């Protein structure tokens, strides 16, 4: 377990160690001590939950960026069998910041695509820190069209600090690539489940984010811009990122209140980075259930509901109208 040096995280690591110790002891000890150890374990679990519940939004952002969090390929390794990675957009290149392919989630073949970050500097250079170029979005779209052709559902995993702002990205139409995906994904005649597994920054996240269900893992964030980006524009200093994070209301709970997401998926105690396998198993169970809910729906109904879902998003006032349009609650 690498720690990133945040105070709250050191505390959680210490508590998790203690908890592992207590659990280990409860296995090989006299049954007479079992109740006592169980109580100790419960106390420790509660302490960890307490720390979590008191984290501010910026600390939540730090958790979402934790370098030991499971990334798309980690989830694929634990959730998907017979996975075959498929490369390239058939137009320009294979973008390493977005991965995708065919595989089985339980008994169902799905197309799964997601942003892919790296852990080491070397990996991050290879993955471009999970910041996709246009060819990444076009690869994702190519795979989604494949899914539509063979009537397989699509799972999209979002984890990006944003689409890459580079010269080549602009030359090859970053804006068009993202816009095209929003357009096409809104009409793709198979179920699409979108899950934010880490960071969800701006159009770079939304570019693979239109679907029938929007879910967020517990320790993730999703907004129109990163806290640093927002701070440097509105506060004229990236140092104000903590205030910006508060102002943007970017946690899963915030987005639930704004009426933008359907579910928050719980993570292992202390965060998904403590147990990739357990995190993947929770996500897998959720995906199986949601795919079951969407699976029986005729394509036209699916598309009607998808467009209704996005049409409802937004909060504004309209005097003289029958009601104020909100999607809250």
């Amino acid at each position, binding site marked *: 377990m690498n720690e990133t040096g945040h105070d709250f995280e050191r505390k959680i690591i210490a508590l998790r160690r203690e908890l592992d110790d207590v659990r280990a002891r409860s296995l090989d000890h006299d049954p007479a001590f079992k109740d006592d150890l169980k109580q100790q374990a419960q106390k420790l679990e509660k302490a960890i939950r307490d720390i979590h519940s008191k984290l501010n939004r910026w600390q939540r952002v730090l958790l979402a960026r934790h370098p030991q969090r499971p990334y798309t390929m980690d989830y694929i390794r634990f959730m998907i069998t017979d996975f075959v990675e498929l490369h390239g957009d058939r137009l320009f290149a294979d973008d390493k910041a977005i991965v995708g392919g065919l595989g089985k989630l339980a008994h169902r073949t799905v197309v799964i695509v997601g942003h892919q970050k790296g852990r080491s500097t070397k990996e991050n250079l290879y993955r471009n820190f999970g910041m996709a170029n246009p060819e990444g979005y076009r690869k994702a779209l190519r795979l989604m069209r494949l899914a539509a052709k063979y009537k397989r559902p699509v799972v999209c995993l979002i984890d990006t600090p944003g689409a890459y702002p580079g010269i080549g990205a602009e030359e090859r139409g970053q804006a068009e690539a993202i816009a095209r995906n929003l357009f096409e994904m809104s009409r793709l005649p198979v179920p699409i489940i979108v899950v934010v597994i880490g960071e969800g920054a701006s159009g770079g996240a*939304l570019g693979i984010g239109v679907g029938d269900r929007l879910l967020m893992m517990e320790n993730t964030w999703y907004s129109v811009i990163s806290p640093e980006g927002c701070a440097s524009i509105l506060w004229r200093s990236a140092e104000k990122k903590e205030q910006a994070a508060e102002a943007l209301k970017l946690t899963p709970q915030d987005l639930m209140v704004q009426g933008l997401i359907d579910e928050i998926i719980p993570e292992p105690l202390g965060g998904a980075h403590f147990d990739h396998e357990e995190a993947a198993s929770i996500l897998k169970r959720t995906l199986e259930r949601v795919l079951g809910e969407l699976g029986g729906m005729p394509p036209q109904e699916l598309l009607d509901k998808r467009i209704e879902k996005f*049409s409802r998003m937004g909060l504004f006032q309209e005097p003289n109208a029958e009601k104020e349009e909100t999607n809250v609650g």
Partner: protein
Amino acid sequence: MEWFKKVKTGLKAQEKRPIPDGVWVKCDTCGEIIYKKELIQNLWVCAKCGFHFRIKSGDYVRILLDDGTFDELHSNITAVDSLKFRDSKKYTDRVKDAMKKTGLSEAARTGIGKVDGKSIVLGILAFDFLGGSMGSVVGEKIARATEQALRDKIPLIVVSSSGGARMQEGALSLMQMAKTSARLAQLSEASVPYISVLTHPTTGGVAASFAMLGDIIIAEPGALIGFAGPRVIEQTIGQELPEGFQRSEFLLEHGFIDVIVNRRELKPIISTLLDHLT
């Protein structure tokens, strides 16, 4: 092309409106001193160098539509401070100030009108209202305009100028990109034409949604068009951007827009395209 010189200064050069009541106006690009009445007659295009001054949403109504045909819709929809957002200023105050400054209710205006007698739905983004940024209201108005075009089976024209999605509404703003694009996909399925007109500047979440989704994409000369802003790109790559980067001519060269049209030709070209497509 003269306006290429402006790329390093970003938006600044075109941000200044000429002296409102002055008789003479200096061209930001070539320095020519122009008689204001002449400039207005020339739709705010410098006769010497072709520089397109930024104009207001009302000017586009006059340029594009037949006189007196604009029937504005949904101008009673206004912003809500759903996040209780506050930076150096409260979001609600920013909105109020923008309303006072522009006399508009939001950064998008939509309505029905006629181009050479042909009915269309028109949407215009107002850059002078919080940088033409898209929050819930802009998203809703563009979505409703698209629905109207679909219902009445009449073409949709949207004139964009925007810095992108509005930060003060957080993820709600982001989702407007999906909402507008989804409606346009429906319009497209019904083969109802959508012409997107890009003016200076069209960037961020507006570029990465409805602005780039036109059946036909027209740009005014020299407009800054792209996903990331030039400053962000320069900071990321640590080098200066090439001349003309992200300008209309650059997008035409790279295959992302159909045609660059001088403002004076905008209405006739659109009218011809409408004839071809309807």
